[in-house]
């Protein structure tokens, strides 16, 4: 029987994530997946896993884990101090954790989420084709919930493949602030004309209620028009929705499949990972861009990620 990883301390919020549960939203099943897909992919690439292998997403305060067998691992994203036993481990690089080794996450300066990839992947049972944890509906991952002390995570078979030695791309991490580009919504009928300039006029702060479902922002109120209730529409990742109080919400990984608030725009795919590294108290500034600019940014990011695999 293959060994696993035991959770000695779970950290603040550690969940199993892969690239998400696509294809089931028509039946109300949310996508979930990593808040910073870039860091998830780089961590997997460093240990030789496919991009959709499950990693552990680690939030603000990291866990302590015991390895039942020797494995190659990598940590990317937020710059936690990581130790194996008494040794300091390199960030964004593959290293070995011996059988019986303790992997500990310590202090952190930038970013809020790190991804731990283990060679072979975290092998929890897939639900609707994905191992991603969707916390609100308790679907997928480790029993649909965050990791807890005493959990034992199964691992996929180790393959001992030659690991990537190329330098991984440097990922932007916000230092308390991020500039997020967005594509303006086609239909702004529900907004006053000054709504769009208002959103870009000042910084917004992530309020404490922000989580994997969405970032609730505080800042200059964006004025909507009272037009009665809207019929719910599908909600994409990064949608900037504005409830009646004018305080925008950015929909993140655990968003519901549909929503009934007017949408001012959608954060571009290339900036989602950066957004995923924010935490409550951090600020964002919004900058409108064209769809062509969004695609160019995505291609540039994709080139950097592809170069190492």
């Amino acid at each position, binding site marked *: 029987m293959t060994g696993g990883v035991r959770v000695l301390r779970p950290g603040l919020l550690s969940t199993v994530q892969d690239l998400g549960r*696509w*294809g*089931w*939203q*028509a*039946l*109300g*099943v949310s*996508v979930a997946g990593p808040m910073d897909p870039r860091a998830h992919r780089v961590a997997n690439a460093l240990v030789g896993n496919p991009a959709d292998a499950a990693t552990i997403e680690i939030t603000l305060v990291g866990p302590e884990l015991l390895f039942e067998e020797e494995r190659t691992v990598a940590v990317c994203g937020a710059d936690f101090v990581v130790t194996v036993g008494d040794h300091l481990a390199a960030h964004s690089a593959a290293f070995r954790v011996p059988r019986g080794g303790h992997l500990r996450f310590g202090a952190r300066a930038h970013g809020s989420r790190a991804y731990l990839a283990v060679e072979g992947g975290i092998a929890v049972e897939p*639900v609707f084709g994905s191992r991603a944890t969707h916390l*609100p*509906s*308790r*679907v997928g991952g480790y029993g649909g919930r965050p990791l807890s002390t005493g959990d034992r995570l199964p691992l996929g078979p180790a393959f001992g493949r030659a690991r990537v030695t190329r330098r991984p791309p440097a990922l932007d991490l916000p230092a308390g602030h991020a500039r997020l580009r*967005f*594509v303006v*919504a*086609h*239909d702004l009928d529900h907004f006053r004309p000054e709504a769009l300039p208002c959103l870009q006029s000042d910084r917004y702060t992530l309020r404490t209620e922000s989580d994997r479902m969405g970032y609730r922002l505080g800042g200059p109120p964006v004025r909507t028009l009272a037009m009665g*209730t*809207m*019929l*719910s*529409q*599908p909600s*994409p*990742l*990064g*949608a900037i929705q504005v409830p009646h109080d004018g305080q925008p919400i950015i929909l993140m990984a655990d968003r*519901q*499949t*549909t929503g009934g608030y007017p*949408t001012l*725009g*959608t*954060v*571009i*795919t290339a900036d989602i990972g950066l957004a995923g590294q924010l935490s409550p108290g951090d600020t964002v500034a919004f900058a409108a861009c064209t*769809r062509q600019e*969004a*695609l160019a940014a*995505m*291609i540039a990011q*994709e080139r950097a990620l592809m170069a190492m695999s």
Partner: protein
Amino acid sequence: MTADFSIVPIGDAALLVAFAERLDAAVNARVVWVAEALRRAAPPGVRDVVPAFHSLAVYFDPLRTDHDRLTALLDVSAQSSRDAAVVAAPTRQVPVCYGGSYGPDLEAMAASTGLSEPEIVARHVAPVYRVFMIGFSPGFAYMGTVDPTIAVPRRPTPRVRVPVGSVGIAGSQTGIYPSETPGGWMLIGRTPVRPFQPMRPDPFLFRPGDAVQFVAIDADAYRRLSPPGGER
């Protein structure tokens, strides 16, 4: 012929097809039709097709998708969906125990509508509802259209926990909570039927376009029909 729909990008990785914004079976039938057509065509790069009331989203990988070709395909589908008929699906009957602890908002609804509790129940079980869309949580079916005399708005403050199987009303919509979630709908009863059970061969009881009628049962029948451990 002028288009009676729009196809617009939402962000850089999705397109939205929208018909006239109203809660209408004929509009919704077009949405379901286009979603089905797209699923059958399965163009490369498409990751998800999500039908709602009057609109549907197509999520795609922009690096693997020909945006113009996908737009053209959606345009042809949306044009030809004019012929989509509202299919008379077989009606599924859903037993509900109304009022009391199972329907904690029924009394308040009687007070606000001026109708008696049995009258409200009679108006809720009368129509055959259409499942317009599934959203909010896995298997949550938005059904309509509720009789206007009992189409009460949501609670001002949502409940933190709504029990699984709760049957509620929100304006002209009615539905069943498939899992224990927060929720703001006015709760009038509870069903032993489970719209979402991940371990069932088909975990989802409802699909867009389904026909549903509620049937009133008493507390004894509710207990008899309840799945073991089903209060979770």
